[in-house]
């Protein structure tokens, strides 16, 4: 036999016992060719394009799940940032498009559709402002639409006027939805990648072709199991072991992504090698860090352990695929990762430590429940802190906070399903209002002048 029994069993075990899966296949769709001065024609163009390709995506992905025995958990669509396609339309066009996208996603059996957002790192057009103002209504009146805003970048600095707006918008979204769940569909970024396959922040960037099939692999369970098997080795060797595993799962992801793109007759985009955790026990990034020897996620040493982990994943992934892209960092969403959630419950993990983790490899403060009475300007200040790390370090950072109405620090909240459950985190009560309300634009850092 061309393969040894051990080789075959390694692959089989990954899928059978260690939750190896393709976390998402996300088809990016250009909607610029749907624009029409007549809003009804515009909506029908959008609906037709999204449903046609959405249905094909679901159908073709299902066939590959069978062929390779690897579950493809989510089939999703990202579209051209909606603010760009409604520039010449009436005031209520953004909302109309949001509802159309929602209906199209539902009819095509797509669970989330991303791209309801704008890139405003340097300033806002009238259409951008209208879209931002529509966010609370759009996210509370639709089920599947995900929204994003890019408000900062290394070359443009940070649009603080947009950051001020965001604080109250996040609170408004929370207030209109049960347990503030609308906020789980909204991500704010610095340096947002244009080919990110993961929700809530996915959108089909302006530099992309008509279509682009992007894939997010997963495998915290697989990595955890190899770390478990290598309890005694030093960190150099541990890095090697993780690297080899990341290589293998990335190769599998690339194979499935390329085949899916070819079967759909669309260009293959990127493989996002982020380790995406789920609420399943054992499928947790915190679980890997703890298996490496950290007493509890958030304890001293966690930042170093996570840095080593993701560096090894990147090296293995880069060797496996020439198309690594998207976020390709660490996701440590608090509510969606059972180990992270447990660490919050035990008091091992604070929001400040989570912020520190983003300085090395995490891509943001993700799925964090905060007290419902947190002032809007404090939310803006947390966003500004987090995005500054991205701006200065020339990396992506994002924020997805949920100020849960009526809840205080320590309260339990359940978002249901893949969104998970969590405990409300403690937030400093000292105010930075005067700093935030200055507004303006934080200049780009000196490191951005590279020409």
């Amino acid at each position, binding site marked *: 036999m061309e393969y040894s029994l051990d080789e075959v069993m390694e692959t089989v075990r990954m899928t059978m016992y260690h939750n190896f899966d393709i976390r998402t296949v996300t088809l990016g769709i250009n909607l610029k060719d749907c624009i029409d001065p007549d809003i009804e024609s515009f909506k029908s163009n959008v609906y037709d394009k999204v449903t046609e390709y959405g249905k094909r995506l679901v159908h073709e992905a299902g066939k590959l799940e*069978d062929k390779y*025995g690897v579950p493809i958990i989510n089939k999703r669509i990202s579209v051209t940032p909606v603010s760009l396609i409604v520039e010449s339309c009436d005031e209520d066009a953004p909302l109309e498009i949001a509802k159309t996208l929602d209906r199209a996603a539902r009819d095509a059996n797509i669970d989330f559709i991303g791209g309801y957002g704008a890139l405003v790192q340097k300033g806002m057009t009238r259409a951008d402002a209208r879209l931002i103002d529509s966010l609370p209504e759009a996210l509370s009146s639709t089920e599947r639409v995900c929204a994003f805003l890019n408000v900062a970048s290394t070359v443009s600095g940070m649009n603080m006027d947009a950051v001020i707006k965001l604080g109250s918008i996040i609170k408004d979204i929370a207030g209109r939805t049960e347990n503030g769940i609308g906020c789980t569909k909204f991500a704010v970024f610095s340096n947002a990648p244009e080919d990110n396959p993961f929700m809530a922040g996915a959108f089909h960037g302006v530099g992309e072709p008509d279509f682009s099939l992007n894939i997010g692999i997963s495998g915290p369970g697989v990595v955890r199991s190899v770390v478990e098997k290598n309890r005694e080795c030093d960190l150099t060797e541990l890095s090697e072991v993780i690297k080899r595993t990341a290589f293998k799962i990335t190769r599998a992801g690339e194979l499935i992504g390329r085949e899916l793109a070819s079967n759909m007759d669309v260009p293959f985009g990127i493989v996002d090698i982020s380790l995406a955790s789920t609420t399943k026990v054992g499928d947790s990034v915190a679980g890997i860090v703890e298996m490496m020897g950290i007493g509890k996620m958030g304890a001293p040493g966690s930042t170093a352990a996570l840095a080593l982990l993701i560096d090894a994943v990147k090296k293995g992934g880069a060797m496996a695929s020439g198309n690594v892209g998207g976020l390709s960092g660490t996701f440590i969403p608090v509510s969606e990762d059972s180990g992270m959630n447990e660490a919050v419950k035990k008091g091992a993990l604070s929001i400040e430590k989570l912020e520190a983790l983003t300085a090395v490899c995490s891509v943001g403060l993700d799925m964090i429940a905060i007290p419902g009475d947190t002032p809007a300007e404090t939310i803006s200040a947390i966003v500004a802190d987090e995005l500054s790390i991205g701006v200065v370090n020339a990396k992506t950072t994002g924020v997805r906070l949920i100020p849960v109405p009526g809840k205080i620090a320590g309260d339990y909240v359940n978002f249901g399903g893949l969104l998970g459950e969590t405990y409300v985190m403690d937030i400093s009560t000292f105010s930075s209002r005067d700093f935030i309300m200055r507004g303006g634009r934080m200049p780009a850092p000196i490191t951005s002048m590279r020409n």
Partner: protein
Amino acid sequence: MPKDLVFITVIGKDQKGIIARLSNAVFRHNINIEDLNQKVMEGYFVMTMLADMAESKASISDLKKEFAEIEKQMDLKIQVQHENIFKAMHRV
């Protein structure tokens, strides 16, 4: 005709008739067994069968449906995966 290879993997308690039942199912679908390997790993019976589906009318999902019955009756776990994924993961 180019080959269309799949790995059929079985994990479970060792018992009489595992290979007989699988080979029978595979034979009925006109699938050729290219190679067979079995051993006891960590207390479990493990078998991998490399099979060529090129001349079969059945799809992988048809085969999986048929194996689901055997899985239930014999308390086994059976996985069918196209060879490409093993090539991608284990061969550079």
